[in-house]
C-alpha cells in the first residue's frame, strides 16, 4: 500500500497516556501511514467539559484540535479518557470528521470497570485500538459497514465492539485504498 498522509496521536487530558504508544504499529499497518505520538503537546480538554452532564463535548474537542494543528498535513487522532457526548446523544465512543482531518476517541466507556466489572487492561487496549481504527476510518472517508466482523461496523455498545475485529474487511480495504490514492 502506498504511504499516505501521516497520523498524529494527540492526548487530550484527562487521558490514559499508556494507551497511546500501543496504537502506533497497528494503525500504521492498517492505514499504511507513518504514525507518531505528539509528545508534550497534549490538549487540555477541560474547556469542553459540560458540567451538568459531566461529559466532554466531542465536537468542541475536534474544533480545538483543528485549530491547534492547523499546519499539520495529515490526520489527527485525539485520545481521551473523558466521557464524550454530542448534544443529542447520551454518549459517543468517538467522533470524526467524515473524510476530514480530525478524529477523537474516548477510553471512558471501553473500560470494564465502567460497567462494574474487574478491570481488564488487555481488553481495554484492544477495544481502544478498534475504536481508534474506526474513527480514523471515518476520517479516511469510510462509512459504517454491514460486515459485523469489520472494524467499521457500527457499535453502540462494548458487546458489539468485542464481536468485531480490529481489521478492515476486504471491501473497506478496497475503499480505503481508492480514497488515499
Amino acid at each position: 500500500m502506498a504511504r499516505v498522509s501521516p497520523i498524529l496521536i494527540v492526548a487530550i487530558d484527562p487521558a490514559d497516556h499508556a494507551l497511546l504508544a500501543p496504537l502506533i504499529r497497528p494503525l500504521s499497518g492498517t492505514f499504511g501511514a507513518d504514525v507518531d505520538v505528539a509528545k508534550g503537546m497534549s490538549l487540555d480538554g477541560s474547556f469542553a467539559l459540560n458540567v451538568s452532564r459531566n461529559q466532554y463535548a466531542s465536537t468542541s474537542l475536534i474544533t480545538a484540535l483543528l485549530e491547534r494543528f492547523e499546519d499539520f498535513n495529515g490526520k489527527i487522532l485525539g485520545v481521551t479518557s473523558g466521557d464524550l457526548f454530542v448534544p443529542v446523544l447520551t454518549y459517543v465512543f468517538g467522533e470524526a470528521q467524515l473524510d476530514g482531518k480530525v478524529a477523537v476517541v474516548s477510553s471512558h466507556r471501553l473500560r470494564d470497570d465502567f460497567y462494574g466489572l474487574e478491570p481488564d487492561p488487555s481488553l481495554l487496549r484492544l477495544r481502544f485500538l478498534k475504536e481508534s481504527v474506526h474513527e480514523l476510518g471515518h476520517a479516511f472517508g469510510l462509512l459504517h459497514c454491514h460486515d459485523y466482523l469489520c472494524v467499521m461496523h457500527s457499535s453502540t455498545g462494548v458487546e458489539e465492539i468485542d464481536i468485531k475485529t480490529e481489521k478492515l474487511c476486504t471491501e473497506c480495504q478496497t475503499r480505503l485504498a481508492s480514497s488515499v490514492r
Partner: protein
Amino acid sequence: MANNQKVVQSSILIVDDELSVRDSLSKWFKEDGYRVGAAENANRALALMNEGPWDVILLDIKMPGMDGLELQKRLREIDKSASIIMVTAFGAVDSAVQALKEGAFDYVTKPVDPEHLSHLVQNALRTKKLTDENWRLRQQMSELSGVEEIVGESQQMTKVVDLAKTVAQTDTTVMIRGESGTGKELVARTIHANSARRFFPIITVNCGAVPETLLESELFGHEKGAFTGAQYRRKGKFEMADGGTIFLDEIGTISQKMQVQLLRVLETKQFARVGGNEIISSDFRVICATNRDLEAAIGEGSFREDLYYRLNVFTIFIPPLRERRVDIPPLVNHFVQKYATMMNKPTVGIDTEAMDLLIRNRWPGNVRELENVIERAMVLAKPPAIKPSDLPFQLSQAQNSVEEGDELLISMEKVHIARVLEKHSWNITHSAEALGIDRVTLYSKISKYGLKKP
C-alpha cells in the same frame, strides 16, 4: 456488504431548530451511509419534501413557529408512508403521546441513547420497507385479479354499477338477477373487487353445473374416505372463500336438501366437511345469482322461503340487452378490441350496416351471445371493417325479430309491416293493399319504425 455499496440508499430528514442537534445527527447518520437532509423549521422541512421521498423523518416537537405536532400533519398530507419519529425534550411526553396517536412511528427523548436511536431507526426503516412492499404486492394483486370492466352507457347499467359499488362497501348478501348471459358473474366480481375483501379470493360455484350428489362435497369439502373416491381430505368452497366472497351462481337450481344445509351455513358461518366432525368456521360474504323466478318457485314449493329471505337482502337486477340497446355499440367496440388483441389481428372497425344489424337483433343470449358473435366475426373479418356478411344472421332476420316477452302491439305491428314489405319486394302499393291501409299511412309507419329497403 458495506453500507458504501448499498444499492438503495435509505434517507433521513432531521427537523430540529438546534444547529448542534442537526449537525450531530446528520454526521451520525451519514456515517451509516444514509442520505441525510436537515431543516431548521417547518417551512424548510416542507420545502425539503420536494427532495424526498424521506424514509424516516426525525421531528423535534418544540420548535418556534409551527410545532412538530402541526408539522407532522402537514408532512403526512404530502407523504403518508414516511416513518416519523418525534424527538422530544425530557418532560414533554404528553405531546409525544399525542403525536403517536396521530400516526408517528415512535418518539425519543433528548438526549438519546445511541443504541436505542440506532435500533429505532432500523425498525422504522424495516417497517416502512414492509409497508411499502405490502402496498406494492396489494397493487400487483389488485391488477392481477382485476375484473373486466362493465361496459355500458345506458341509465340501467350505470345504475347497476353504482349499486354494485355501493353495496361493495358493506358485507350485505347480494342477489343478482337477470337473464342468462347478462353478466351476473361480472357484477359479482365488480362487487368483490371494490370491497374490503378484495385481497382475498372470490370463489365461484355454479350450482347448476355441479351434480346434486357432488355439490355438498364441493361446497363443504370432505374428509379422506368420506365416500368412494375420496382419497384425500379436500377443502370446500366455503372454506376456500375464508376472508373473501363466495359467488353462488344459479342458486335457484339447488335441491331442497341443499337449501336446508345452505341456510344453516349462511346463518352460522360454520359447517363440517363431509365425513368429518370438526366444525369449521369461515368468514365469507355471499353473492348469489339466478335467472329463475324464485318467487314463483316459492309458490310452487320448490324453493324455501326462509332461504329466499336470507339471500334476497339486496337485489341487483341486470336488464336484458334488448332493453338497453344503447349499450350495444360500446359493447361491440369493446369486444372487437378485445379479440383483435387476443387474435393478434389488426384493429378492424365495424361498418354502419353491420352495427345496425347488431343493434336490431333481439339477443336472447344477451351480452354472452353478442360476444360470441363478435368473436366469430373477428375470425372472418377482413380489414378495414366487419361487414354484415361476417355476422351469422342477416338484416331481415334482425329486422323482423320480435323480442321474447315483448307483447306490445306496436312491436308486433313493426315486425308485421316489415314482413309484408319483404314479401312484396318493398312494393308500397301491393304492401299497403295487403295490409289494408292506404299508401300514405304505410309510408308514415315505415318512417316511424325506421324500416329500410335492403
